[in-house]
């Protein structure tokens, strides 16, 4: 029996594709701007409603902000007249002349005017220290921390309080104010809390029961109470604990309170870092004959601190925001200078408060956001090192 043409199914195929077909472009609705919009903004009825609501809200916020800060704002003037509502201008926005006039007060407080260059030099010294520590390609970074933690604090102290023997007039801390005080309080907290925090963390992980007990008691006590009460303690109880003639001045008391408070939080951050170091590192260090402090200084702390940098910076952000609380115990930090300036009858106008708060908010936001970006960048950099 012969097979006739057409018996096999295959022969019925009329066409066989022998070359690959060029891929078709994806449907227009799923790619490009339109596809992105559909996928991310209008993927379901609920999302459409949400998108429209948020657009409306954002539009309203942006409109109100621009109106308040720019278009309706008052830009020139010498006193409250410039910012008072009049029939011609029923809704005055931000009162910028108030900020121009009080800018030097916001920065220096009541620091004597001929001596203000010293504050500027202090800011410059601080900036040098910060850049030296944070910029990875800076020359001689090993000297940077020595400068930041020892040289700069001493120089700044001499510069700001004065030293008669080298011709710098004494300036009482009562006169300090504004951003100067905010930055002094924050830097003292930052400079003091790390070493004290490291010691406390080491104490908490110590084998010695008494050292451990003291560290735990201190850390848990400070972390269990609000900063306000610590500041109250520093400002009203501390003077009672020392002989009358040694009584520290108001700013120093607040600085002690802030430094102790920040160190307790720093101790917990460092402790977490120490706990993350594998036991083999400790054993290895001991096996090569290092003593306790050598082991900590050369082997453990460099690794532990490196992985805790993001958390340390986050603690610093909290500390920077917490410096505003010295306002409550009567220190003239930036927030308090704004409070004092805004209730001055010379500038009694409806939007002066909001303007002052906007300036303060921008100031704090820039610093805190900057620090949090740095923390995140460091985290990414460290994660890259782990990836190898």
């Amino acid at each position, binding site marked *: 029996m012969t097979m006739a043409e057409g018996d096999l199914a295959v022969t019925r195929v009329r066409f066989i594709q022998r070359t690959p077909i060029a891929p078709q472009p994806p449907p227009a609705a799923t790619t490009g701007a339109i596809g992105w919009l559909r996928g*991310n*903004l209008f*993927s379901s009825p609920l*999302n459409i409603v*949400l*998108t429209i609501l*948020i*657009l409306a*809200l*954002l539009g309203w916020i942006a409109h109100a902000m621009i109106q308040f800060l720019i278009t309706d704002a008052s830009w020139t003037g010498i006193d409250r007249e410039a910012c008072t509502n009049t029939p011609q201008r029923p809704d005055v926005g931000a009162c910028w002349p108030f900020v121009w006039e009080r800018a030097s007060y916001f920065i220096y407080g009541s620091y004597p005017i001929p001596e203000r260059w010293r504050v500027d030099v202090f800011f410059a010294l601080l900036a040098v220290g910060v850049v030296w520590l944070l910029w990875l390609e800076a020359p001689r970074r090993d000297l940077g921390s020595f400068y930041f933690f020892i040289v700069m604090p001493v120089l700044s102290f001499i510069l700001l309080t004065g030293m008669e023997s080298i011709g710098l007039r004494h300036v009482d801390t009562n006169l300090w104010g504004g951003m100067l005080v905010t930055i002094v309080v924050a830097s003292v907290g930052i400079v003091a809390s790390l070493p004290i925090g490291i010691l406390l963390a080491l104490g908490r992980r110590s*084998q*010695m*029961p*008494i*050292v451990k007990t*003291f560290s735990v008691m201190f850390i*848990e*006590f400070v*972390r*269990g*109470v*609000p*900063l*306000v*009460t610590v500041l*109250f*303690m520093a400002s*009203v*109880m501390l*003077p*009672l*604990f*020392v*002989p*009358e003639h040694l009584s520290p001045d108001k700013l120093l008391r607040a600085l002690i309170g802030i430094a102790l408070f920040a160190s307790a939080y720093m101790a917990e951050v460092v402790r977490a870092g120490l706990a993350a170091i594998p036991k083999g590192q400790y054993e290895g260090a001991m096996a090569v004959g290092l003593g306790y402090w050598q082991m900590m200084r050369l082997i453990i702390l460099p690794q532990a601190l490196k992985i805790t940098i993001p958390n340390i910076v986050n603690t610093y*952000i909290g500390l920077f*925001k*917490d410096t*505003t*609380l010295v*306002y*409550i115990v009567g220190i003239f930090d930036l*927030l308090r200078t704004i*409070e004092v300036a*805004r209730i001055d009858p010379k500038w009694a106008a*409806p939007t002066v*408060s*909001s303007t002052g*708060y906007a300036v*303060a*908010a921008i100031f*704090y*936001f820039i610093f*805190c*956001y900057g620090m*949090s970006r740095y923390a995140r960048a460091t985290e990414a950099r460290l994660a890259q090192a782990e990836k190898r």
Partner: protein
Amino acid sequence: MTIEAPEREAARVAFYNDPKVRSVVYQVALTAIVLLLAYMAISNMFENLRRANIATGLGFWENTAGFDISQTLIEYSSSASTYGRAFWVGLLNTLLVAVLGIFFTTILGFAIGIARLSSNWLLAKFATGYVETIRNIPLLLQLLFWYNAVLKALPDLRDSVTFGGVFLNNRGLFMPEPIAKPGLTIVLMTLGTGIIGAVAYRIWARRRQMETGKQAPVLWVSLALVVGLPLVVFAAAGFPLEFDYPEKGRFNIRGGVEIIPEFVALLVGLVVYTAAFIAEVVRAGILSVSRGQTEAAYSLGLRPQPTLRLIVIPQAMRVIIPPLTSQYLNLVKNSSLAVAIGYPDLVQIFTGTVLNQTGQAVEVVAITMAVYLTISLATSLAMNIYNSRMSLAER
């Protein structure tokens, strides 16, 4: 020839190099220093107090306070009440703002945390913007803003915003006060019974579902028991509730319930600020549940909503709850910033007014700290118990 082992002797170190001796010396020295400092501090303190003629001890607790408090949850009068009474007023005010704050900030924080993970790009970015802005501005500044720039900028008494018996002006929010008439007790008892019944029904329904797989209409039955039943009784009893409406006079508002602006500013400030932190906690918690869990649930045929409720959230909660508790504690501690805007909380009444009047700084600050410390330590204890019970059973 035999090799004689050299005489082995335990390596002797000088006693001052012996770690044990050293550790004892260090600890004795530390204790001595701490005791010495404490002794000096305390003797200085008594010396200073004696010179300043300030009494010591807790005798002031029973003295008449003599100052007014703008918000009191319990009976208090400046002429008759003691400092001890003022302490309880302050503590209750702190707890009031803390409890309400925790309630609202949880809702807002979870909403924003989930919004950050939304598939809607704009919503996610908006939530991120909220978190970044709020977290980077000090709470104290936010409180001052809410109080001075928002609430104090409201119209004054004469131009009060009025809607249906409610007055809003820069002195606060005045609302009708509900006054119970006889018969309300029965309604409240019905409500209580309804809640117990609903809980019991839920337990029963759950057990039945475990055994037979049959589901029960828990939501509808609970609603009927908790809302419907009391409403019916309320109507049957002839609506035994009336309102005391506030009345606007020339210089003040009489009657009704008053909510002071300090309270509102503090509550709003705390809720908005803490929510930003809770949002981050929630986001991290949800992200910690691996994608495989969701995919497995989908492949078993669960729809997105039950997947979230039954698979993702129970696992995320294990990660969320410990940091969430510490955020709650932060809220309680941050409520002490009330002192800056004049809300009469514990710190404002005690370390503010009482301290100024009595001058007994040590006692007053110690009592205030002890209160917060008790709250914190009790919470940590509860958290430790929770963590040990919830920790994953390792195989």
